[in-house]
């Protein structure tokens, strides 16, 4: 097989992430994705140009948004002949779109692409009750007025109540937080360790904003110029005062402070071949090296819902001949502080690594000063499908600043017991 060419991260653009019901309460997914896309187009001078493709997705999606990304492209400054498609892998969406377009670029099918995602917790779809929905569908399919009248007459008052949106796994009925509370308990993750990680996330993000790190990564939108959930002045002491919201009794350690808030936002990454970037005098931040996706059976309780990255990373390391310590930077998505800590604990556990992963020894610990150095989802917020694009762009820039050959690992857990992980390397 011919040596595949490199796919490189040229840059990225996102809008500041908002709190649910906050700055973007009136904005739809398409509005936010367009804002991020137009910002990216302006940043890299792509107005009126045709890009190889745009791949993006949203986790919470209205049925009218069946062609969300293509509709966004049509309303953007890009040439209308740019193809686009939607992709969805829960919180892994954003990173999966980058993997998808990077693979196409490496294969030579396209030379450039924009990848990422958007989510709105504010503008979430609300479904009508199942009884009403089925009656309306029957009425819609009816051929005679009588059939239609019969269908409509079958609607009962109780059918008129909307379907309550539930943030729970369909097969377990448990929310992600309830699942993670079980995992945190299993791994003995303390409240103190979670609050420390959460405080560090806010402090790191605040420092990065103050240093101007996001100046070429973020476009303001709706009068928001910084991430709305950021609390620069939070502290371990303040976080310790919050009451647990997930788990029960003595062992409940997860609070609103060390869990990601519901958020709104969009993030995109520009990926290209080195030649394409060079022709346009665009920077090349990092090379997309490789990626892996794993899934766990959380339904029978044999593994935690958010533990799949713990399985994906060792498979990726083995394929690349790397150890867990061969990285200059680590980006582990902070779905919950305890998710990051459970994953690290699993890699440090001899028992987990030998029995569950089938390795000879534990993967070991990482240098915690290299972890989420400019903050992560606890402070930035986590509009589900937007997180991957945010992390890829930030990490590529950080690696580029560190110099050629520096290497970064991305790990993102997702609903449905999946985990998407990838390696970037500065060029």
């Amino acid at each position, binding site marked *: 097989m011919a040596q595949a060419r490199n796919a490189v991260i040229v840059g990225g653009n996102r809008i500041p992430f908002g709190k649910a019901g906050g700055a973007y309460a009136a904005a739809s997914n398409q509005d936010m994705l367009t804002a991020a896309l137009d910002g990216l187009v302006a940043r890299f001078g792509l107005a009126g140009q045709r890009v190889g493709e745009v791949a993006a997705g949203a986790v919470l999606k209205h049925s009218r948004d069946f062609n969300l990304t293509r509709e966004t492209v049509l309303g953007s400054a890009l040439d209308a002949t740019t193809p686009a498609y939607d992709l969805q892998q829960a919180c892994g969406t954003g990173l999966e779109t980058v993997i998808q377009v990077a693979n196409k670029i490496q294969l030579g099918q396209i030379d450039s692409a924009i990848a990422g995602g958007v989510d709105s917790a504010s503008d979430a779809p609300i479904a009508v009750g199942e009884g009403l929905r089925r009656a309306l569908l029957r009425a819609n399919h009816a051929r005679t007025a009588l059939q239609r009248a019969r269908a409509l007459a079958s609607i009962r008052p*109780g059918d008129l109540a909307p379907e309550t949106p539930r943030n729970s796994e369909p097969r377990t*009925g448990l929310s992600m937080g309830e699942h993670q509370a079980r995992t945190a308990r299993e791994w003995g993750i303390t409240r103190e360790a979670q609050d420390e990680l959460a405080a560090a996330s806010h402090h790191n993000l605040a420092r990065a904003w103050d240093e101007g790190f996001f100046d070429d990564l973020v476009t303001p939108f709706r009068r928001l110029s910084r991430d709305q959930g950021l609390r620069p002045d939070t502290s371990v002491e303040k976080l310790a005062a919050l009451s647990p919201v997930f788990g029960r009794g003595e062992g409940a350690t997860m609070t609103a402070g060390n869990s990601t808030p519901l958020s709104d936002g969009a993030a995109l990454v520009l990926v290209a071949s080195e030649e394409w970037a060079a022709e346009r005098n665009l920077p090349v931040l990092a090379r997309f090296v490789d990626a892996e996706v794993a899934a766990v059976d959380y339904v*029978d*309780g044999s593994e935690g819902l958010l533990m799949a990255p713990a399985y994906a990373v060792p498979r990726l390391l083995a394929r690349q001949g790397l150890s867990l310590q061969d990285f200059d930077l680590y980006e582990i998505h902070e779905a919950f502080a305890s998710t990051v800590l459970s994953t690290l604990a699993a890699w440090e556990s001899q028992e987990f690594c030998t029995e569950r992963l089938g390795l000879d020894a534990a993967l070991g610990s990482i240098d915690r000063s290299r972890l989420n150095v400019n903050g992560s989802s606890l402070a930035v917020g986590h509009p589900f499908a937007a997180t991957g694009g945010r992390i890829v762009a930030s990490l590529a820039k950080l690696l580029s600043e560190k110099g050629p050959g520096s290497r970064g690992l991305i790990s993102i857990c997702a609903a449905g017991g999946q985990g998407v992980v990838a390696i970037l390397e500065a060029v």
Partner: protein
Amino acid sequence: MTVPASAQDIEVELLEELPSIGREIARALVPTRRGGPDGSLPDRRVMVTDLVQDADRFAAYSRVCGFTLRDTVPATWLHVLTFPLQVHLMASADFPLALPGLVHVSNRMRLHRPVGVGEAVTLSSSAADLRAHGSGTQVDLLGEARVGDEVVWTGRSTYLARGKRPSDSPAQDATGPDLPKNAPEAVRTSPRNGGEPSALWRLGGGLGREYAAVSGDVNPIHLTPLTARAFGFPRTIAHGMWVHARTLAALEGRLPAVYEAAVEFRKPVLLPSTVGFSFAREGGGLGLCVTDRAGSRVHLTGSVT
């Protein structure tokens, strides 16, 4: 009409179509002297031949129970199809126990081969093994589904008539302690999930009516709080066979192509409520249980092999 069965030396009562459960219940409410000449079980088999399955009702059943709609049917659907024959037999004047008050305490069935919803099935039901048991009398209602001559499904539903206990047998709580010694491993505390159920099901107040509409089981204890109270329940209770079907739906992807499912119905599930479901591998099969959301009060235990 009544004709002698060719295969077994037992009479067959051949019905034109599946009887209406509502009418059978009404028939059973008429006071009458019950049982055969010596209080024995009717020794005939009630049968419907080459029944074409109702694909639309099957789709609705799949939705209400949480099954992915497939072209093959779960074992519990074949129980639903034979259930009217059971009720017809139990409502007959020569059945020794009164239908109102009979409690479905356990169920066991085997799917001998995958059955398509497009296959015509010959269904039959008979009663067997009338026996003193604990606080009353138990009887088994045997069911069978054939496609042509091939037996594709067999079932055994065990019913208890409370208070019909022969005077010389000792009294015993029929539902037993909350956690029986032989409870599946799934019931027991597992360090991984902290003894909490692995899934929660939120059951609406109208579930009994929804399941009645797709199963035909219009027993008033499942329909409205008022009718449930008339039979001594504080609220509407979920159909045991819905709970059973829901467990099989929850195990979808883990069920073998042919399997035997056995459940014991313990405390009834009052509606609306949130219940917990747990399962675990046990030997070559799966153990399962449905509890309250804390995992302590047991509604159903069972196994699939």
